[in-house]
């Protein structure tokens, strides 16, 4: 469940970065605008909130929140580092991470 939280939070942070013009250009090049990029910010925040749920299903409230906050930090850090050093990776990563999260959540 921790991995699902991490994957959801990672997707959320990538969406938040995507919502900012400077970072969008880092990822996809100058002048490229994405359709629906207006939705990236609310969707990003929503995913960050949703990422608490897998932890809540596995732990009591206090432990779930502790895990969640720790995983949020752990998910934001690679987004920052990749934006700086390998921005092109973030697009594909943002596509794979939610699939991984879904697979983990639906796995028996």
């Amino acid at each position, binding site marked *: 469940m921790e991995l699902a939280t991490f994957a959801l939070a990672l997707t959320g942070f990538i969406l938040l970065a995507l919502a900012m013009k400077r*970072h969008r250009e880092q990822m996809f090049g100058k002048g490229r605008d994405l359709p629906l990029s207006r939705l990236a910010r609310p969707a990003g925040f929503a995913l960050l909130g949703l990422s608490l749920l897998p932890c809540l299903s596995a732990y009591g409230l206090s432990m779930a929140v502790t895990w969640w906050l*720790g995983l*949020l*930090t752990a998910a*934001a*850090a690679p*987004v*920052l580092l990749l*934006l700086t050093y390998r921005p092109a990776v973030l697009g594909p990563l943002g596509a794979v991470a939610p699939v991984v999260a879904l697979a983990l959540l639906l796995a028996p």
Partner: protein
Amino acid sequence: MKGRKGQDLGLRQSMSWLHGWSGLLLGWLLFAIFFTGTIAYFRQEVTAWMQPETAASRPSPQAAELAIAKLAAVAPDAASWRISLPNDRSNTLGISWRKAQPETRARGGNGRGERGGEGNRNRGRRGGGRDRGESLTLDATTGATITPRETAGGTFLYRFHFELYALPREWARWIVGIATMAMFVAIISGVITHKKIFKDFFTFRPAKGQRSWLDAHNATAVLALPFHLMITYSGLLLFASTLLPWAGDMAFGEDPRASRAEARAAQAREVEALQARLADAAGTDPAMAPIAPMLARAERIWGQPASRITITDPGKPGALVEVLPTRNDSLAQHSGSGGLGAVKLRFAGATGALIDEQRDAPGSAIATIDTALGSLHRARFAPPGLRWLFFLAGVGGTVMVGSGLVLWSVKRAEKRKGAPGHFGHKLVDHLNVGAVAGLCIATAGYFWANRLLPARLDDRGEWEIACFLAIWLASFVHPLLRPLRAAWLEQLTAAGALFAALPVLNLMTSHAHLGVTVPAGNWMVAGFDLVALATGLALLAAAAKLRRRIARAASKPPVATHAARLAAE
């Protein structure tokens, strides 16, 4: 509108001033607190690395039986036995026992302080004079006695992060407490000073001088902000009895120590009554019921294995077995140090019947929050994955303080535009080298001393600490003799090389090196080598970067670089 904006600027500037000075004045100390405190999340694992004699011991299902057999052989008449079972943070089996008269203070000959045998440093200091009796470390598979080398271990780094060293306890707590308060001030004022928390959330622009240092400082601060707030605020609470001696009276009654002693006495009476009942029921048969079914029962009830066993009056009709779980699964749960208020199960020694189930004692809302924040700070509850997250956030905090210190210097150097700084600036510049890079060298040196000092040295743990302090002191002298950049370069290189070579040193001086620990899946010990290697490579990379910058600066006249920098701004 304009007036409001002016006011806003004033607040931000005053907060920036507050942030800069509260951060600087205690920043050197805060760096050391963060650095050693972060390592302390793995203090048992660090101690295990520093006692490679224990590495061959592997957990086994019959560990508890081995412990009881050994205790029955060496201390058949003891008043009580204690067993620490191997778990995911310790692969050895610890046994200790107390003589029949609780007043006798026998000092164990094997230098086993708390779990893991950390030398005699904290013997008798902890637990307010409660007798710890004698103890042994056993191989968890064979039951053979292990005699590990004496070491100050991870415990020294742990204690250093809140008690420093060789200072009167209360003084040290005051100093660290004041630093913690400065940290709290720095966090609050830093958040107010930071203009674009959300806009710059993912921003890091490398190789841009002051800009990069500010980005690194902001990123490590903001990304792990929940951790920084939690660790600083809970740290303050842990010092509350030192910093606000009268507050404890208001919150917990007039004398918390007396009320704790009373609770302990009440518990002792309860146990005595329980034992009297057991003795009546059991008759005179001294045989003990097997321990394994009790442990299995405990694991079924808790959903996690037991890790500590206390047997009172072993072999007597009133024998009582108390079993404690490995870790808490709720933050508001007492950690069980001292055995008060902890979750535990009690079994009748003679029959193995479960006779009492102690759940966590609920407290007031304030007491619960206090317990939860204390748990969060110590992270004793944390399973391995969460422990790593705490560790990484701690690394973030360490980088935050370090980059803040460097930023203070860099900012003023850029303002001076190449002019030499006055005494104050020079002092800060040079202290930064020893406080940041020097501490890395000293810590690596501490681990080297662990392997290079003779194994049978008297007071070996103290010698390790002496090496640590001597190296750290030297690292403050060295920058006075060298140009600033050369001092940084040399110290970073030394720290990086010492850390990166620790796995090699381990290979040459023990049988618990990566070539053994990785194939055996002994990640507890292998983890130390791998983290040391990663730390060393990171420090060497920082040194390489600095070397390139020095080379570039030397090839360009300084005026040109300043013009370029001004143009860039």
